[in-house]
């Protein structure tokens, strides 16, 4: 009797082994929305993979870097990483342990919806370091009720935008008193803050580079670039169209100004729309391309990057992790991404449940222009950008009497620095 029972127990254990629960850990920085999306996709994935569960863990971006780099280097990596392309570059550089996703992509039969730009943005150092899952679009937003109160229209050109900003500030559309509302919400404190703002106006105006071209040539004193740079700097300073404390603003402070109803024009990322449709701004905004600066250039909404999934080479369940990464490009995962995160890469998704503004991002009819990502090809770019940022901050704090001379001087300094950096880092 005992032998039979023992045999049955062994048999039951062996039979149970193939369906033993497996858990895939995925580290991201998308907060609650990201976790909600990945949980939903995980439940869908489990239908074809019984016993497999997904465990999304969200970290603040700074912590995400440290943990990801540390874990990959100490062979305690999670199964998957999810983040912006440029952040995964840093993990790849610091660890050398990010898989090439080209074989995973090749095994997906219908991946033709990924554009050449998408694939270029996902590639670093000859390897596809992420499977692109979400395009990051950033448009120009204007508070609708303020437009109505001041009798304005969505600005088409930079001159329109400036006039509108002045009208907002003079008109006191919130009735909180003059000097309490501002034309634009911008940020400046960290290098990425200020240069990111400049990126949006520059690329949005149809130019292809902000500071350097792909060969490392400094472009800021070329006539069209210089015009955008001068206008952006004056917006922070001489024009007085942003809160005076903007020089110390990073993302959080900029969002406080936007969501606190203190600004008329601001950046709208596709990830902001779902929240701003229902909370904070409560749908009181219009979106469109960034203002046009030049008659010969098409203004556009900016593709500011690509969020995607990466698989560490030392992922504990690598084949399963690859399968889940591929699953994120499937229709159910993409549909959920569009609904919850506000962005996706597949064009064949159901738009029925989306708001009008979400649809504008999901099926863009406006012109799109993608960042050039100099950090992916020029290893010294972050150092150059930090020096450029420092120089621009000086100009915001103490506006130069002659902006053209300042830009020429800055360009000369940046060229000298490029030479130094190239000599040092190649």
């Amino acid at each position: 009797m005992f032998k039979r029972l023992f045999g049955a127990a062994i048999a039951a254990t062996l039979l149970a082994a193939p369906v033993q629960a497996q858990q895939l850990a995925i580290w991201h920085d998308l907060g609650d929305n990201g976790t909600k999306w990945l949980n939903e996709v995980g439940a869908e994935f489990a239908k074809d993979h019984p016993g497999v569960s997904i465990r999304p863990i969200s970290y603040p971006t700074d912590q995400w870097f440290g943990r990801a780099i540390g874990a990959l280097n100490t062979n305690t990596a999670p199964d998957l990483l999810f983040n912006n392309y440029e952040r995964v570059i840093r993990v790849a550089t610091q660890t050398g342990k990010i898989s090439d996703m080209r074989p995973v992509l090749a095994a997906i039969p219908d991946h033709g919806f990924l554009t050449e730009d998408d694939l270029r943005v996902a590639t670093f150092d000859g390897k596809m370091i992420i499977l692109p899952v979400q395009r990051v679009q950033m448009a120009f937003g204007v508070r609708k009720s303020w437009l109505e109160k001041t009798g304005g229209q969505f600005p088409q050109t930079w001159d329109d935008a400036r006039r509108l900003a002045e009208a907002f500030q003079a008109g006191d559309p919130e009735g909180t008193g003059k000097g309490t509302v501002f034309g634009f919400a911008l940020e400046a404190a960290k290098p990425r803050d200020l240069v990111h703002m400049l990126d949006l106006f520059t690329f949005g105006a149809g130019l292809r580079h902000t500071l350097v071209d792909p060969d490392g040539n400094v472009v800021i004193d070329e006539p069209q670039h210089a015009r955008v740079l001068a206008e952006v700097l004056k917006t922070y300073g001489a024009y007085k169209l942003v809160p005076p404390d903007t020089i110390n603003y990073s993302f959080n402070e900029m969002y406080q100004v936007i969501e606190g109803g203190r600004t008329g024009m601001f950046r709208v990322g596709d990830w902001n729309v779902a929240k701003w449709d229902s909370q904070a701004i409560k749908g009181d905004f219009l979106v469109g391309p960034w203002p046009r600066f030049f008659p010969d250039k098409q203004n556009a909404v900016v593709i500011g990057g690509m969020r995607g999934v990466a698989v560490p080479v030392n992922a504990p369940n690598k084949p399963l992790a690859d399968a889940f990464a591929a699953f994120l490009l499937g229709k159910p995962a993409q549909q959920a991404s569009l609904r919850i995160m506000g962005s996706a890469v597949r064009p064949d998704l159901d738009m029925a449940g989306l708001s009008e503004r979400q649809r504008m991002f999901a099926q863009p009819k406006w012109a799109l222009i993608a960042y050039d990502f100099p950090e992916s090809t020029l290893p010294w770019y972050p150092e150059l950008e930090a020096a450029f940022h420092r120089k621009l901050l000086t100009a915001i704090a103490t506006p130069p009497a002659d902006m053209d001379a300042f830009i020429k001087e800055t360009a000369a300094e940046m060229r000298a620095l490029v030479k130094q950096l190239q000599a040092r880092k190649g």
Partner: protein
Amino acid sequence: MPAMRREGVFYLFALPFAALTILFGLWPILLSIQVSFTDSATALQPAPAWVGLANYRAIFADPVFLAALVRTLAYTVLAVAANLSFALAFALLLDSALIGRGRLFFKLAVFLPVVTPDVAGYVVWRWLYDQSFGAVNAALRLLGLPAFGGLASPRTAMLALLIAELWHHAGFYVLIFLANLAILDRAQAEAAQIDGATALQRFRHVTLPQLRPAMAVNLVYAVIQFLKTFTAVVVMTKGGPADATNFVSFYAYQQFDSAQYGQATAMATVLFAIVLLVALTAYRGAERGRA
């Protein structure tokens, strides 16, 4: 109990704390110093590339770091002087007969900021200084005074930061001074008064020398505190505007944030060495004074 055995028991009890100090105090410092001798791109890898003193040469050739170092030292001198002067004056006021029943209230008022979470306190200060809706400029306007540039101007940002830090830290120094004042030998002051010494002379020649222990503790603590100023900068200025509050600890953090691990830890090591040197010098000075 034989002395050897007594010492053995002492070490046995001290062992867990010593182990914790080594594990969580010394080991990270040593690791950080180790990283400062590696190439940033490989710093966090299991087998980093060693670059000798290259990171130290790089930071001492970096004008931003040198400016941050000078700025840090200048801010420390100003902040230590301001905090200790204010704390001493406030403690003397609280210790005097001039304040009667209000003593407890003022003690609480000056000490509460010390136990207030740093970030919450500095966020409020940032709002107070805000140029469009801040209370500081609103009050100045009411009084018909010119506006204060606060955190938005490179000329005033360091002063604005110093005031906020004084609000946060001074209560601790006041408390130390009060503890020392409580054990003063009052007879000496009374004798000096009978001998015709003025109030200022009594303070200078009788009270102040007796406050040397509190002064030494406060000086060492304040020097360490302000050389490492970080939270106020992160919350209020992020090193700006235009580097006006970019101190070494924040600059090192920025370098770390942009993956320059080798240089960031080299900066941290330099700051650590300065803190250690200044603190030891101040401590030695105080010890010598006591002898």
